[in-house]
């Protein structure tokens, strides 16, 4: 059994991120991860947010 599997040079070093996130600062990307496992709350739709702050 090989212990040094061949590296696929075409395999990207960074996977599973959008092109936009790939260009965001690393600290921003990593601090946004819900590390304790809590799901991120969905952002309020803008209309609901405006309605909320206007009472």
């Amino acid at each position: 059994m090989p212990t040094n599997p061949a590296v696929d040079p075409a395999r990207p070093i960074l996977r599973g991120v959008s092109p936009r996130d790939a260009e965001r600062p690393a600290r921003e990307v990593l601090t946004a991860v819900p590390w304790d496992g809590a799901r991120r709350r969905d952002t309020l739709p803008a209309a609901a947010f405006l309605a909320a702050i206007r009472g």
Partner: protein
Amino acid sequence: MSPIPPPPSVTARTRPPRSFAAFDPTTVDDLDDAALDELPFGVVCLARDGLILRYNLAEGRLARLDPSTVVGRNFFTDVAPCANTEDFHGRFRALAEGTTGGTSVRFSYVFDFRFGAQNVDVEIVRAPGAPRLYLLINRRQFLPERTGPEAREPAPRQSDLVADEAARGILRNRYAERVLSTPVVLFELLANAFDKQSAAQWRTIAHDWGLAAGRRLVIELETAGDDEIPLGDRPMREVVELVSDLLRDQGWGVVTFDLAESARGVLRLEVESSALVARPGRHGRRCHLLAGMLEGVLNHLAQRRLHVEELSCACTTGRPCEMIVVGESRRELAIRLAAEGRSFDDVVATLEAGRADESGG
């Protein structure tokens, strides 16, 4: 032939952000050598006459001088003659002699080295109640070597300070850090020794060892660029390349980062061609050292305590080693699940179920 002189005594060394803006300089004298070495900026402790008493790892790395060979020399005449000016030494003397108010002074300066000049911010701090002062040196910009009339006498190279080190069995890299040229089987031998003597402790010790090495790796990464942009402010893509390239160039293998499950609070890392996997074996997981190193880097980037645990190793699977990154609250469970040989998907599902259990009861 005159006997080869013994090497000078080695001072202890050490972690990271690149600026000392958030650091309380009055506490520097309370830090031991290991803590000084964890700082991401240069720290030099001087007696009032300029004799070097302490010299941290970051300063050694950035000045390309081995801390163990500069301690005991005079900073202004032997190690940094470019600082032997009224602008620098004069301020130092005034603070040392108490002829200036306050306990610290801060200014910008240009250090001259043979490998290039450096724009730095310097803060000189007088240790409270002790006859010593600290230089806190933060690099702002790396420049080409100055050769014009503005250039001052450059700092010596390591080889100028200690001649013919190779004859004494001392090898150094381009940053004058002492290195060892040895087959990676040395790591396997160490792991085997642990297997015989204290198998239960190997994971913990190797991981902790790696974490300390990861903190030092951060200094390498933070000082790798020619600009002053902190690692965390660089694009995610660029940071991943920097980390992976550095580890690859050091011979550890190729690390890849998969953030596809990041919304679930986990990342997946893979290490191809890990240096810690010498041959197929009965041992389940061999790369705890690398997991710790990556944890040190990710802690720094995420600005919080994370945990990296190897789930499967090339030594038994023949595929790249797989690791999971979790938050501190999931650490113990992740370690237990990894020890049970669970797959990445299984671990993630169980971590989420664990949280659901907590929420439910």
